[in-house]
């Protein structure tokens, strides 16, 4: 099994009709169901959400600049680490990612192995 990072971009274009408590809870439950499924299949290794704001540190002078990143449609909202046989299988694991309907995207990246 290889490890893959699923990086979640965007997904914040929530339709107005979804902006009510019941619909929001239902949507969140889809996430839970997805994680649960990944976990049952022994795929889920972990994941975290990221705050929409932060800092950039760049250049030899270590210049620190603020976000805000919140406006960005491509903002990274969080990540999962999953295990899969190969990249195709890792891609297949995103089938139930719930935020596709809100224009979310998933970046699937193999975690580099250090074969020494």
């Amino acid at each position, binding site marked *: 099994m290889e490890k893959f990072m699923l990086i979640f971009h965007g997904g914040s274009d929530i339709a107005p009709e979804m902006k*009510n408590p019941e619909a*929001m*809870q239902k949507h969140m439950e889809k996430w*839970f169901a997805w994680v649960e499924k990944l976990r049952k299949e022994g795929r889920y290794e972990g*994941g*975290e*959400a990221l705050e929409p704001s932060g800092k950039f540190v760049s250049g030899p002078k270590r210049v620190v600049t603020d976000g805000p990143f919140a406006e960005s449609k491509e903002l990274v909202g969080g990540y999962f680490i999953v295990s899969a046989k190969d990249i195709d299988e890792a891609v297949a694991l995103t089938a139930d990612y719930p935020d596709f309907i809100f224009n979310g995207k998933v970046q699937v990246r193999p975690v580099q192995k250090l074969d020494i």
Partner: protein
Amino acid sequence: MAQPTENVHQLVGHLFRHEAGKMAAVLTRLLGTQHIDTAEDIVQDTLLKAIEVWRFRGVPENPSAWLYKVARNKAIDWVRANQRTTKILSTQVDIINSVLHVSSPSEDVFRADEIEDSVLRMMFACCHPTIPIESQIALTLKTLGGLSVAEIANAFLTSEETIAKRIYRAKEKIKQENIKLDPPGLFDLPYRLDSVLHILYLLFNEGYHSIHSNSLIREDLCAEAMRLTYLLAQHQATSLPKVHALIALMCLQSSRFDARMGALGETILLEDQDRSKWSQPLIRQGLNFLERASAGNSLSEYHVEAAIASVHALAGSFEETRWDKLLELYETLLELKPGPMVLLNKAIAIGYARSFEAGIKELLLITDLQDHPLYLTVLGNFYFLLGNRSAAHTWLEKALLKTTSPQEAELIKRKLQRIISTQKKITH
């Protein structure tokens, strides 16, 4: 870092919906009714935040407390950012800040009894008698029930635009009349409480009797009405016999919820219901409340309606129904709440308690229901029971012409079918 495996707690039922109503009430009370929209926005943002975090981390140990903490921080941010532009006075800002920043649990606005208190006050504000009734209903469902405009529109089979307008009007009225989230005074309470109870009664009935195809929405309406009435019954200021009578009525009616509908969503009449499907816990609860409602000497229409529902609940079969008791109760109800539908029910009770002829005689005296499918169906049914098949056929045919509900039409057709099949049996 704890693994989500240990952190994922199953979410209970309508957590978001219920907490949304509570948070909106607390925040509106805190920020003032002129900022009711802001309070709702803060609630919305709080739930969004929960989705963002919980989907990765799982549901926290105490989800409600988590939500309240986020709502509190968002409220503090809003007050800080808007104290100059809004009409919040600086003294008020200090109060709000001190209330929001408390660290001791005993002063917490999100303490259980404070929340209940806020919800109750909000209920009285939403059902303020100066607001048109349909706006009261919409606002109560939206703000306290946590239902969306779309859900409410769907439940009342009307457009979202109409519901949005009703809510807007209610909010404008609250602002214009400067309706505050103060508890009604001692003299005002009975009158204001009547208005609240009436709205909850209408809400429940809408859920219970509407012929809406989506039974989930109907159940939700009933559940919300029951939850709010239950809250009134629990609160010391409003724990009055009338309130107990209303919650008793709701418990007894909803005990039949599952038995009233067939697999295809068709209505099943009382006489054909499988009584083993009636919820005994709800019946017991209803009877308990009804007993408590009889403390004191006030008699409301809710008392009588709950008593009627209890007579049905206690009957082991349709044949064992105490129609004599029902007849008495309908006569009392007629004095409290005169109307053709009560007359119709009284006539039904007469039909079963005395004779079908007496029932028919009584029915024919009712003049305002000539086009009502239920009235026509009852008449047809009594003629059928009397053995007068041709008259039964005529009335049921009329009923079929008048009904607009497919489920009702289905029922009437089935009755007509029954007449034809019994005729066949006789001729054979």
